[in-house]
């Protein structure tokens, strides 16, 4: 089917409502669109040779999980460090030794 040169006519293109309604009723649904963002970021990263979307923080839909995991990891590291080092923490033991008697050397 090709256009046989009728294009330039200034027709009103009057709305064929029955056909339009049928098209809308039958085809116009809110189709579940795929998430194309990750694919787009990957392609841009590859084609720009890592100039864009290279750091991993700007990629993916939301870095929330990354932030969360990093925070939990840091908390775990701090907890382990505290557990290991806490026995070493305390007030200093008082020195119980009496000072040695001073012996005066006679002249």
């Amino acid at each position, binding site marked *: *089917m090709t*256009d046989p040169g009728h294009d330039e006519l200034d*027709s009103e293109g009057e709305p064929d409502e029955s056909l339009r309604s049928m*098209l*809308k009723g039958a085809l116009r649904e809110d189709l579940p669109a795929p998430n194309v*963002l990750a694919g*787009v970021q990957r*392609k841009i990263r590859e084609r720009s040779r890592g100039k864009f979307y290279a750091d991993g923080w700007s990629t993916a*839909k939301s870095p929330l999980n990354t932030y969360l995991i990093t925070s939990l990891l840091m908390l775990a590291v701090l907890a382990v460090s505290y557990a290991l080092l806490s026995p070493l923490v305390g007030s200093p033991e008082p020195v119980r030794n009496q000072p040695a008697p001073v012996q005066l050397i006679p002249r």
Partner: protein
Amino acid sequence: MAERRGSVADARAHPVYLRSGVSEAEDQTERKFIERLAQRDERAFNELVELYEARVFRLLLRMLGRRDEAEDMAQEVFVQIFKAIGTFRGDSKLSTWIYRVSVNLCKNRMKYLSRRHTDGEDELEPVAERSALDEAKGVTFGDIAQPDRLVEGYQLERALQICIAELDPDFREVLILRDLEDLTYEELSEITGLPQGTVKSRLHRARSMLKLSVERRMGEKIP
């Protein structure tokens, strides 16, 4: 998606309109958004993809008739937009420009696929359960619980997909953009690069051809 300052979605609440369909706030916000995109702001681009991916994918799926092709092409559209955003001068709305990029890439892809003879009707995918031909208007999922009507709805959808796929790409694009995406003649004119009169004429012919084709295939007259 949460609305943010400087995003396109941010401007939707402002009712002051300057010219056809574009409010002052929307215009300014879009300009700022485009500036961020032109500076290759990755977060702005993420926002753009999230904002338009459904519309672009839906258009491409209608044009190509195949989900895998449409998904791949949608990614390609956004990559091309990322590359070419610096050339966007703001003469039209950003959405119109995105549609134009989508349609042009899609038509190139269709030419490539037609050379490979892979865009046959067997590869067209059903989208969802549909209604019968004479009752397609306004029918919702809840209305079509009966199996015979589901079959009829499926047949109608198949017939429509096949008939749309048989249309010349130039006719297909105006039909989809106007009747399914609800774009204005002005926007259609900007996307296709044709005068509005030509667009109207082409749309009229596309509808006529599709109507004849569906009637022939279904053996039923469209009221």
